[in-house]
């Protein structure tokens, strides 16, 4: 019997650093790694997204009244201590393009940041660039990584995905182009290494040597790609273009890293995926905060689960798989259990909000300099309704964003809100996906 799951490490922990514990080691981080701390001119605005699958039980989630005095709901209870730091937005729609029925769960994910309904495509890909990637092009100019894609579930064990749609549509929110979904990372150790490098040593000279080596490999490989590319028909060149884009990304990263020449934090490596789901989520949120804090990136998306997730939550008394039970058919017990999962997810989000609030950044805290979305791509999973989706907007948006209210839009495409949020970052697009206008900034207390 093969029982070995080498989940912990191939690696490479210096002996003596020894028995690294998975949690909550990142708290030992020294703050103010951020290079930005030294240049307090204009506060940075960061963009974060936390996605939850399979919609929500709307009766339990959506406040009944609008405005600043809205009464909180059972699902949102865990966020009540942060009431003044987020808004509830309702009436936003992700209605699929007419003539493209089906694949409600796949589209829920893909549309959430691209505003595009992909056509039926089981073995190929066709969506469009997503909002986080559009913003990443701008916000990433100053940071080593343009963006980071995180997840909790692994897409590889999902098996078949939504009918008629290849798995990337449900496995990621982020697309750098119509056929380029960006994979999510769910292993904390791999995320850590992505952020802080793969050298086997903390010795500065060795790190410099390694960087030089990587650069020469990238140069040489780039030449090989152009040689290869010349012999190919255009249709085939796209894959190699992806490869070149990736090379440029790494080169840019090396350049910035060299310029910054920053000291690496002395932190223990996380040891792979923790056994408990809750520990796993918290550790990923810790890494997210660490990435913002050290200004390695300003754009992060994170999926708490995949649409049609078979995840069970026995720790809160729900041993049923999430997706099947979210098709509750109005049976009270299933409705209640689904709502329990929704509230549990919100509780996890509250952990992130709290942590961002507690992490100093410039003249305030990280939360002040964030535009942070929490939401789902469909409302009630039972009916696959893509209208009036659950959507929270948290953070201070670097002075642009207020909290503490519930605003209802009347049948407005989510794309319109995306455009308005992009405006706040100085990224002005005329149109995205199925947008038919913009949301009035004052509705969001934006630009106040």
């Amino acid at each position: 019997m093969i029982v070995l799951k080498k989940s912990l490490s191939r690696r490479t922990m210096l002996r003596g650093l020894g028995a690294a514990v998975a949690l909550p080691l990142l708290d030992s981080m020294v703050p103010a790694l951020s290079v930005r701390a030294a240049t307090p001119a204009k506060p940075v605005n960061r963009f974060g997204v936390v996605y939850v699958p399979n919609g929500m039980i709307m009766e339990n989630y959506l406040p009944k009244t609008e405005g600043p005095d809205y009464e909180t709901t059972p699902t949102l209870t865990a966020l009540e201590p942060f009431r003044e730091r987020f808004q509830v937005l309702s009436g936003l729609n992700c209605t699929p393009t007419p003539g493209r029925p089906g694949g409600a769960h796949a589209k829920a994910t893909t549309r959430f940041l691209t505003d595009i309904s992909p056509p039926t495509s089981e073995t190929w890909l066709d969506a469009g660039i997503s909002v986080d990637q559009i913003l990443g092009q701008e916000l990433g100019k100053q940071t080593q990584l343009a963006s980071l894609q995180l997840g909790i579930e692994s897409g590889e064990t999902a098996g078949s995905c939504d009918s008629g749609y290849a798995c990337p549509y449900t496995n990621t929110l982020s697309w750098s182009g119509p056929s380029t979904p960006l994979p999510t990372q769910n292993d904390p150790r791999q995320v850590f290494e992505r952020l802080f490098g793969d050298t086997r040593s903390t010795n500065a000279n060795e790190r410099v040597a390694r960087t030089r080596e990587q650069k020469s490999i990238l140069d040489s490989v780039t030449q090989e790609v152009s040689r290869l590319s010349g012999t190919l028909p255009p249709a085939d060149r796209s894959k190699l273009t992806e490869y070149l884009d990736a090379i440029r990304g790494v080169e840019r990263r090396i350049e910035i890293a060299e310029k910054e020449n920053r000291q690496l934090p002395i932190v223990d490596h996380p040891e792979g995926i923790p056994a408990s789901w809750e520990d796993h989520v918290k550790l990923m949120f810790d890494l997210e905060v660490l990435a913002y804090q050290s200004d390695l990136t300003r754009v992060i998306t994170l999926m708490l689960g995949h649409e049609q997730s078979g995840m069970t939550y026995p720790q809160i008394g729900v041993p049923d798989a999430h997706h099947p039970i979210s098709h509750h058919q109005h049976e009270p017990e299933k409705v209640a259990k689904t709502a329990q999962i929704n509230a549990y997810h919100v509780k996890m989000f509250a952990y992130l909000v709290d942590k961002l609030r507690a992490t100093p950044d410039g003249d305030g805290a990280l939360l002040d300099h964030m535009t942070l979305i929490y939401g789902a791509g469909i409302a009630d999973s039972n009916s696959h309704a893509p209208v009036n989706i659950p959507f929270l907007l948290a953070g201070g948006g670097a002075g642009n964003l207020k909290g503490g209210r519930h605003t209802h839009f009347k049948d407005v495409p989510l794309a319109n809100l995306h455009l308005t949020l992009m405006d706040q970052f100085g990224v002005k697009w005329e149109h995205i996906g199925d947008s038919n206008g913009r949301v009035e900034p004052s509705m969001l207390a934006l630009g106040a």
Partner: protein
Amino acid sequence: MSVRLLKWLSLAAVATGAWSLWADDPATVKSASVTTGVPRVPQAKAIIQQYCLGCHNAKLKTAGLLLDTANVERVGENPDLWEKVARKLRTAEMPPAGRPRPDPSTYRSVAAELESALDAAAAAKPNPGRVPVHRLNRAEYTNAIRDLLALNIDGKALLAADDSDQDGFDNVASILTVSQVLLENYLSAAHAISALAVGDPSLPPSVETYKYSKLLVQDDQMSEDLPFGSQGGGVIRHTFPLNGEYTIKVLLRRQFYDYIMGMGEPHQIDIRLDGVRIKRFTVGGEANGTTMPEGFAGNTQGSPEFEVYMHTADAGLEVRIPVKAGEHEVGVSFITQLWEQEGVLQPRQIGFARTTNENYHGNPAVEFVKIGGPYGSTSPGDSPSRRKIFVCTPKTSAAEEPCAKKILSTLAARAYRRPVRDEDVNALLGFYRSGRAEKDFDTGIERGLERMLAAPSFLFRVESAPINVAPDAPYKLSDLDLASRLSFFLWSSIPDDQLLGLAIQGRLRDPSVLRQQVNRMVRDARSKALVDGFANRWLGLSKLASLNPDTDLYREFDENLRDAMAKETQLFVADQLKEDRGVAELITADYTFVNERLARHYGIPNVYGPRFRRLNFTDGVRGGLLGQASILAVTSYPNRTSVTLRGRWLLTNLLGAPPPPPPPNVPALKDPGQDGQPRSLRERMEIHRQSPVCASCHQRMDPLGFSLENFDALGKWRTQSDGVPIDAAASLPDGTHFEGIAGLRQVVASHKEDFVRTFTEKLLAYAIGRGVELADMPAIRKIARDAAQQDDRWSAIIWGIVNSPPFNMSVSGDGKPVKLAQAGRNGPGEIK
């Protein structure tokens, strides 16, 4: 060949030995006759006129399908359209229910007429389709490193996971994209692998941790590689990078409050290297002082010395030994106690409780094995990787560069799967020189290898059209491209020297050479990739890893069962392939493979130990895929079976007739007993099916699922559910009555043609790494038709695929992917 592959082979070879059916004699291949010329379609024309044109005409344009303007006598002018029509007729989906419909035999004969016309058109003008540039997926990369460098790596730790298509295949070229994350992974992997393979003496010591799940029961012998009479633990295959000293440290399982389990009595624990015992420890039984109260461990503490002991008793389970570079087996196990332990009898710990356990009695178990090193004076030694890499050793400094060139060219030809060009070698030598200048010869080779593993020529499969082919014209793949297609199909890896050599000599198109190679490759242990990469994914078993049964209901579930379920199917499919059975025997076979854990699950007595053995059945329950717990479990919910999921799985994966997705807002299933009457699931589903919207699909899916209701959500046999006896009788929409799994096997067997076609379709998609298109249907029918002459054997289907246009041909030029985006693309646009 690695030890692991040999083991796998010997397991698969349990029953009978011979490979005889994988014969090398091409003379036995009869080819089915296909009529040439333009076949007439008199019946089709009349039937379409009578039943279809009423809606599908230029005026009504129903579903956008116009049959009056298309010429059925020239199907070759619009093959995709007629292929769709043939399929709708083959499955009797059209005309819709309620409209006048032909009788079943007319359906079949008209579909057959259309299909043979389509086949003739395709034979006259093949459309092989085109596979875009193909990135190696994680499994292929891992296997390629194994074959290139004699090094087993843990691909999962090095590379991001690959996405899969709707069928679950993760080798589909158009979905294997490249991202910055992946490129960073490739660079790190190249760095780590080259150092490991060459044996870089500057590798710093590190500790690798292997973990055993808390849900793995360790009460018995855990592996055939551990001695009889051993208990718990396991065997780790670890690559030791250098000759040097290493530490092996064992940490025992803790319960919820971190007390080490089973420390009430002494236990003996052995650490082995390659089967040889290094050291035996005694651990446990030395706790002094006052214990904590039974059942309140952690809540109320015992006396300090007791507490310390219970948390640290395993602190000394560590050895430090010299080990030679290369892969070795590290074994850890206890010695079975032949007496029952004293103490308060505890309930058997189950499921979730095992991870939240307060009980600290029972058997101790291994939770972590940590291997650290190398320490002391180290040297590269003589590892299998070094033997593979260093085909020469320079004696003088003048001999160094020629030797480096030889080493790197030899490796690059294998890695790039073609003869190397000057520019390839020059690029690699550049890196060799910088490494040589920095340190020594070995470092130079290490740098050259690192560059090679980041090369697009290694990471991508790029097929090239001959120069003189017209744009968009079909052409035969070059021998080199064909060799790669073969090796990635049958081995999920790079070609070996023999295959590559034949391709370079231009002999691969010789049918007898080709057949000899295909047979050789299937017999080779590397063809295990067909089981892992194809069968596992075709059957949807990648979900098994994330199976989360509700352990309040399925109390017996443990990791041992999960592993055994996966292994049963692997061994069974491998055996069918090796014995070259007809593929329908995957369903009808009367045998399977079980070990003790699985036998207990199935209620089979007298099977002991971790070894899987073949068992034949006469009761018609187990045997073949349908009675396998793996499949029955992944088609269930965590807390109940689902006739719909099982029915859908059968229709989609075995019969090639997937039902459309369900409409939203389906009405509720009434709970059992809601109106005071106990109801079986069947009764509830039948009420559900009274809705006409639901009925159209559920009357196809549910009967198939009902026949498997005797198996619970983990595939265990049962005779009642919800307090009601199981009724596994069912009838199909066409009136066929059948009952239970035995009846279901007959149903599938009676649709053998559909099954073989579906199997062929899936295997073809996997073989070429792209989704199957309508244009591939003539090829699929031909493969199935020819294979039918040879009892649908695996060899016949594989041979048919290898000889089909989609596999050994391609389309030149810009041949745009058939389907591409009319979709909205996002772009910055103009700001008004």
